[in-house]
Structures are given as structure tokens and as C-alpha cells.
């Protein structure tokens, strides 16, 4: 086996080496396996270290999932400390080194993680200035930092590295430390080129899937034939012809094989004769929505309650009602989940692409019956995950196999493991009702969401579940209640979530969880109401928004897209085009996005081509405009894929969409143009940009189809099999 250990791998393999920059007072301590570094989010040295050469190391609990946030976080720290970006290195998601800043999800990496770093850097800068003023015997007001050098008004200079001694950053983060004036920014707000791209295009980047350790073995898992199947037996003799098999590992219903080479492990996992018990506990997929509606409700969450929608609805002469559904979908990472685990002296280190290494540590510790202190999780970037996919599960698999064989083990899932066993975006059902009075005004809005109980907590580790080990998990569909409440000012509103006891496939969050499904229903239903009232969809929204930024955004969207009055559908042509609009204020407190979609529909085949998306986007202060555009383009294209194509299929035993042929995603010829208007508000706090733009995509497309054809599509995805009957029904 070839062991590749480039600089990054060495750093990752021995986190301690990283801190030879001078973080740790005694050099000797840097040689120990678990550096004694503060990981407190309340301490400057939790986040930052500066060595004597002025090199800055950032310790970030938020990680780059392929979104470019590493570059943006580096911009923020470099700006606030006033050092060149080339002087800043960033360590991400290492439980021994980085503060727990929560899961990297929900477009919070800049809004929360970045602002923690900004405050830490502002505190550090203030401490350095104080030290410099004292050393130079000048007033604090007469010193400033420029390009990593403190300069006094009398011409004296000290590089910041020379101001740092052992414990000079061992201070509390001061939430009131003066932050740099926006007017002085030179790095934040600029389209800085991403730090990782050169290595990603020349094959030098170390992805999780590239990570290797000396003496590392290769593991593959063999999953049950049905989700609840029990392992009856397996025949080791069935793989006796494969060279280099180290061990078949069984723990309850967990089954894996470890081999000296990767291909032997792959072959053995395919070839091993295994008998599983028959299990057929999944509902009939053709009856999925009846199943969801009939699942026991454990409690209700009322998300908004304005006036009295029930009494208003009782007396309105005109009522609209509609039911929307959104299919089960999968994350679909292009690189299947992967992890490496290594045990030494009763402790385990796990290299993982997990979006939440601190949470994973707790789960692995519970599963292995170790204390948290005996588990270290080190983030290594993998393929994009778009939420809680299988990375954590691969980590559990690697840990179980490594413990069994006593050597470091790398596990990479096969494609069918990923499509079959990563947790899914749950099926989502929404009932919408509106009451319209005699004055043609909407006076009551009601919605009922049917969604599994739970929030964005800990998703069960597949390996722990199969092996019958504990892992602290619970049903965790994500923050699915967000954006069920609406941004519009109607006199009577009630939005209610019925929390279901269970859901057919283990759920988790996929990019814009809940916000996507709820905004699909809300913004489609707004379009239904506008059509019913013969109102322009844009004008109608503007009339019912009491929000300066929201109004401005919609007006800019109208200009960007050349918005015009809705034409009557042309029912004679075979190929028709239409435009649809949708709007969201993310979680009602964050990023604003408005979209206009242009679509073309073939009335004969039911095929939909999304031709263009116009997007107006306001996430406050923009840290990296090109990075933000990249994310918005990704949001649109990925969500168009989800809207047009994606649905997990299953029989009574198991997921059956186990590859890209059975779970197709959008391809190059099908990708729309995306035209973006970024509204930069440098003096406002930065909000998220990684996922809000997803939320407007489904309704914008559905509303465009309505404009083109008069058909209202309420069931996701909009495949020809669904579109064609809807057109024929007209």
C-alpha cells in the first residue's frame, strides 16, 4: 500500500503538529498527542493563535463542506486582525482543537460562526494594540494595525508576531471589543478567489476519501436486505478465494469485512453469502400520503396564531383549499461517505467529513462505551453533503471495524450503501386553506403540516442501530417547522404542525429542511389566491408585506426579471412557456430571497424545462460576493433537480432507488440559466447564503407551470408522469 502523507495529512494525522506555530507555551507540549489547547468559545485562544512570525491560526468549529466558507472565514479574521490572508491558516472541526460551534448547517457558518470569529479577532486586535501602546509608551489611540504590523503615529512599528507571548491571547472574548469600521474594509466584501480550488483542480487536495494512515486496512459494510432484517448467518467460505481478507466482523446485525486492499474488501462485501430474515415493515409507497395522514400525531406545534382564523373562516363566503406534498429525497453526495478510525491505548481518533464533529464524538463515545475524552474526531473535507448524510454512519462503521481488528480501518460506502442507508428528507404533507370575504379580500389563512416529531439533534448511527449499541440518537428530521408561519399580513392566520410519531425511512435534514417544503406550499398557495382574486402575484405580495427590505427586494426582482402582467394560458400550443414568482424571508428573521422562474412545458409529453431563474438576494453584509453567487447558483440548480426529478423509491423491505439510474438528478443539458441581483448591505449583520435560495425554487416553478398551462401542480417532484395527467385534466 502506498501511504501518502502530504503536509495537510501530516497536520491532520497529528493535530499537535499544527500548534508548533507557538500556540502552546511550552514547545514540548506540542509533541503530545492531545494538545492542551482551550476549545472554549468564550476564549480568544479557543479560536485564534498567533505565532512569533505573525502567522495566524484560526480554530473553527464550523467546517467547509465544499461551500467556500473556509475562504470567507479566513477573510473575516484577516480583515478584523488586519493581516494578509496569506498569513492566516484555518483548522476546522477538530474536537481536540476547535470550539464546539454547533453543526455546520442551516446557513449559519458566517452568521454565527463567522461572527464568533470576528469578535475573537476584534478582541485579539485590541489586546495587541494595548500591548503595543504599552511597549512603545504611546497612547492607545495613536496605534493601529496594518498588514500585520502595529504602527504608531510617531512612526514606530512592531510586527504583531513580536507582540505575542505565551498567554497574550489567553483572554475572554469581549463582545464589546471595537470592530473594524466597514468603510475601512479591504478584504471582506471582495470576491476573493477560493483557497481550495487550485488543489482541487490539480489532484493535490486531500479529501476524506484520500486520507490514509500507515498500516491502515480497508473495510466495507454489508447491510441487511430489509431495513429491519436480522442477520441469520453468513458463510466465510464464500470469500475464501479472495486474497488479503483480514476478518469478517459481526456485531448483532452489523456485518462488515476488513481486508488488506480496498478491492478485496469491495469484492468480499459483494461476494459474501449472507442470510437475512425477511422483513417487510415499510408501507406501500403508492399509499404513502394516506400513510402519513394516518400516522399517530404525538403533539401539535402552533407556529403562528393571529386573530381567529376559525371564526373568520366560518363566515367567509368563498374558501380555497389545497393539499401539497413533497417526496422523500436523498442527499446524493457524489462521493460516498467515508471515514478512518484508529484506536490507541483505549482511545479512538476518527477522521471524518461529519458536519458536526463534536456531536459525532458524543455519539461514538456512547456507542463505544468510552468517555468523550477518549474520542477525538477530526474533520477532513469530503464530497458535499448538503445536510446530515452518511458521513457520521461511516465513522461509526470505521470505529466498529477498527476496534474489532485492532488496526486503523478506512471505510468508504458503496453507491448502494449511500443511496440506500443515508438518512432521508422525510415525506412532507401540507393542507392549506384560505377564506375570502365579500370584498374579495383574504381574511383567513390556515395551514396544517404533517411532519415527523423531533428537531435537528442526533440522528441514529446505522452501525450502532444494527449492532444494538446506544448512540444518544432520536428522531431528527431537522428544523422542519421553519417558514410554516408566513411573512404576509393577513388579519387571521393559524399555522399548525402535526408532529408524527414516526416516518417510513429514517429522517434527517437536507438543504433547506422544512423551509423548502413549507415555502413550496405557502408560495404556491399565495399564487392560487392571487389567481382567484385576479391579482398580479407580485402586486398581491407587495400589498401584504409590511417589510421595507422585503418590498425593496421584490421591486428589484421585478426590474431584474422584467416582470409583466400574467397572460392567459395558451391552450392550443404543444409547447408553452410561463413565469412564476416566489418569495421567502428565511425563517421570518433572516435572508430575503425572491425568484422568478421561466419554464417551458411540452403539453404532449408533460416534460418541463426550466430555462431561467432570476434571483434577488439580500443576506445583509456580503463577505465574498463570488462565493455567494456560487452558492446561490448551486441552490437553484440543485433544487431544480429536486423539483423535476427526485424521489426515493422503496418496496416493503428497503429503498429501491440505489443508484443514479433509479434516482436521477439534473444533467448539464437540463440546467437553467441563473441571473442574480445581490443586494449588499455592508452595514447590516451578515446572514446565511448557503441555502435560503433553495426555498423559493419549487413554488416559482409550479407557479410558472400554472401561468403557462392553467394546471396547478401540488405534488413534488414534477415528473412527466404527474404533469401529463394534470394537463389532461384541464
Amino acid at each position: 500500500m502506498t501511504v501518502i502523507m502530504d503536509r495537510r495529512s501530516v497536520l491532520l494525522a497529528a493535530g499537535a503538529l499544527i500548534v508548533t506555530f507557538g500556540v502552546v507555551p511550552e514547545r514540548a507540549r506540542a509533541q503530545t498527542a492531545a494538545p492542551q489547547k482551550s476549545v472554549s468559545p468564550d476564549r480568544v485562544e479557543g479560536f485564534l493563535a498567533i505565532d512569533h512570525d505573525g502567522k495566524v491560526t484560526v480554530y473553527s468549529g464550523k467546517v467547509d463542506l465544499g461551500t467556500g466558507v473556509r475562504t470567507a472565514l479566513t477573510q473575516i479574521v484577516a480583515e478584523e486582525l488586519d493581516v494578509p490572508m496569506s498569513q492566516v491558516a484555518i483548522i476546522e472541526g477538530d474536537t481536540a482543537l476547535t470550539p464546539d460551534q454547533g453543526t455546520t448547517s442551516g446557513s449559519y457558518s458566517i452568521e454565527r460562526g463567522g461572527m464568533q470569529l470576528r469578535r475573537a479577532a476584534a478582541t485579539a486586535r485590541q489586546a495587541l494594540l494595548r500591548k503595543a501602546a504599552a511597549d512603545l509608551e504611546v497612547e492607545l489611540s495613536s496605534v493601529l494595525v496594518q498588514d500585520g504590523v502595529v504602527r504608531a503615529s510617531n512612526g514606530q512599528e512592531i510586527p504583531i508576531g513580536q507582540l505575542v507571548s505565551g498567554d497574550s491571547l489567553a483572554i475572554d472574548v469581549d463582545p464589546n471589543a471595537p470592530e473594524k469600521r466597514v468603510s475601512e474594509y479591504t478584504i471582506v466584501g471582495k470576491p476573493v478567489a477560493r483557497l481550495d480550488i487550485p488543489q482541487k483542480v490539480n489532484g493535490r487536495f486531500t479529501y476524506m476519501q484520500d486520507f490514509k494512515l500507515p498500516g491502515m486496512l480497508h473495510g466495507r459494510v454489508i447491510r441487511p436486505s430489509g431495513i429491519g432484517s436480522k442477520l441469520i448467518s453468513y458463510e466465510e467460505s464464500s470469500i475464501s478465494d479472495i486474497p488479503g481478507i483480514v476478518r469478517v466482523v459481526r456485531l448483532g446485525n452489523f456485518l462488515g469485512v476488513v481486508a488488506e486492499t480496498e478491492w478485496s474488501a469491495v469484492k468480499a462485501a459483494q461476494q459474501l453469502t449472507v442470510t437475512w430474515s425477511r422483513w417487510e415493515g415499510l408501507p406501500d409507497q403508492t399509499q404513502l400520503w394516506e400513510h402519513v395522514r394516518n400516522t399517530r400525531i404525538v403533539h401539535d406545534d402552533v407556529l403562528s396564531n393571529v386573530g381567529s382564523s376559525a371564526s373568520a373562516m366560518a363566515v367567509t363566503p368563498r374558501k380555497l383549499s389545497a393539499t401539497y406534498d413533497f417526496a422523500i429525497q436523498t442527499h446524493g453526495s457524489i462521493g460516498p461517505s467515508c471515514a478512518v478510525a484508529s484506536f490507541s491505548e483505549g482511545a479512538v481518533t476518527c477522521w471524518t467529513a461529519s458536519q458536526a464533529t463534536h456531536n459525532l464524538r458524543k455519539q461514538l463515545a456512547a456507542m463505544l462505551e468510552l468517555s468523550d475524552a477518549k474520542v477525538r474526531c477530526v474533520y477532513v473535507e469530503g464530497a458535499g453533503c448538503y445536510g446530515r448524510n452518511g458521513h457520521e454512519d461511516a465513522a461509526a462503521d470505521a470505529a466498529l471495524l477498527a476496534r474489532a481488528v485492532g488496526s486503523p480501518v478506512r471505510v468508504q460506502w458503496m453507491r448502494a450503501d449511500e443511496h440506500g442507508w443515508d438518512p432521508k428528507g422525510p415525506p412532507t404533507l401540507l393542507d392549506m386553506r384560505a377564506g375570502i370575504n365579500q370584498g374579495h379580500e383574504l381574511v383567513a389563512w390556515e395551514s396544517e403540516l404533517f411532519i415527523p416529531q423531533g428537531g435537528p439533534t442526533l440522528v441514529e448511527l446505522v452501525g450502532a442501530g444494527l449492532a444494538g449499541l446506544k448512540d444518544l440518537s432520536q428522531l431528527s428530521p431537522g428544523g422542519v417547522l421553519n417558514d410554516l408561519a408566513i411573512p404576509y399580513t393577513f388579519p387571521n392566520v393559524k399555522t399548525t404542525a402535526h408532529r408524527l410519531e414516526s416516518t417510513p425511512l429514517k429522517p434527517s435534514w437536507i438543504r433547506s429542511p422544512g423551509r423548502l417544503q413549507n415555502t413550496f406550499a405557502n408560495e404556491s398557495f399565495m399564487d392560487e389566491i392571487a389567481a382567484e382574486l385576479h391579482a398580479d402575484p407580485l402586486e398581491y405580495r407587495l400589498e401584504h408585506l409590511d417589510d421595507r427590505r422585503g418590498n425593496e427586494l421584490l421591486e428589484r426582482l421585478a426590474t431584474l426579471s422584467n416582470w409583466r402582467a400574467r397572460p392567459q394560458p395558451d391552450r392550443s400550443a404543444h409547447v408553452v412557456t410561463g413565469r412564476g414568482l416566489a418569495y421567502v424571508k428565511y425563517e421570518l428573521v433572516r435572508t430575503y430571497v425572491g425568484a422568478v422562474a421561466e419554464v417551458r412545458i411540452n403539453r404532449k409529453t408533460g416534460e418541463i424545462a426550466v430555462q431561467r431563474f432570476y434571483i434577488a438576494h439580500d443576506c445583509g453584509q456580503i463577505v465574498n460576493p463570488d462565493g455567494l453567487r456560487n452558492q446561490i447558483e448551486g441552490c437553484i440548480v440543485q433544487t431544480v433537480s429536486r423539483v423535476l426529478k427526485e424521489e426515493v423509491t422503496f418496496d416493503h423491505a428497503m429503498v429501491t432507488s440505489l443508484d443514479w439510474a433509479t434516482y436521477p438528478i439534473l444533467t448539464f443539458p437540463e440546467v437553467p440559466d441563473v441571473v442574480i441581483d445581490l443586494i449588499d448591505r455592508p452595514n447590516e449583520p451578515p446572514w446565511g447564503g448557503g441555502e435560503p435560495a433553495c426555498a423559493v425554487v419549487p413554488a416559482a416553478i409550479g407557479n410558472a407551470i400554472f401561468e403557462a398551462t392553467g394546471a396547478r401542480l401540488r405534488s413534488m417532484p414534477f415528473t412527466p408522469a404527474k404533469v401529463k395527467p394534470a394537463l389532461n385534466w384541464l
Partner: protein
Amino acid sequence: MAATVLNVNGRMESVTIADPDTPLLYVLRNELGLRGPRFGCGLGQCGACTVLIDGEAARSCVTPLSSVGASNVVTLEGLGSDADPHPLQQAFIDEQAVQCGYCINGMIMQSAALLRRKAKPSDQEIKQELANNLCRCGTHLRIVRAVRRAAGL
């Protein structure tokens, strides 16, 4: 076990592999330490593992070692170097045409095969060439722009 000699990135490499059915991908990654070609599906569906074999784009995850013979194999690493990147690599940097980047090997290698056949492809031809290369992040628009830029369009 006999040694197999492969011509990879212009160098003759000798590897000792027990199973001649071993896909080329595993040999490139694990025996020769190359990281450009990546495992995505093992089914030839996604394109993350793409290499050039005698100038044609090939899915290394479904190419048995035994079928490679004396063919000329080029991986992402063999296209260009840090100091002298291939025009496609430079164009992907210039257009910032990467998100997670896991698929990007395939995008560049497939496009390299296209540009060998046709120096100035239309947008339609670029999209058609990449129709069987999957990107989950939604970087498609930038990727097309990067290929266009590399072609001097």
C-alpha cells in the same frame, strides 16, 4: 502474482495486483497514489473516476486492469502541474468553477477529451459531452463557462 506494467502520465509504472479484474481506479489511487480519479459510484454512472485512455475519456471504476494493456493512461495529475497547469485547470480556477469539487476531476478529464476532438465546441456540445458527468453541488453553469474559456471562446 506477475507484475503489470502501466503507462500512466507518461511514466511506466509496475504494479503487482493479484486480481486482474481489479478496476483501474483502485490501482491508480491505492498503488500509484493518484487522487485525481475518484470513486463515485463504481457503476460508470457519475464520471468522478474519469481518466483518459489513449486520449478518450474512460470510467476507470469499470475498467478492469487487465484491459488496459499498454494504453496511455492520463489522470488529472498528468494534465498539468502547479507550475504549468493545463488550460482547463487554469480556466476552472479563473471561473471559480468548483464547489465541493469531488466531481471536478471528471468534468476536466471529460472536457479534455472533448477539446482534443473539437477545439471550439458550442455550449450545446459542451453540455452534451458532460451529460453523463454528475455534479450535485450545482456548479454546472461555471463548469460550462470554464470549458468555454479553456477553448478560448
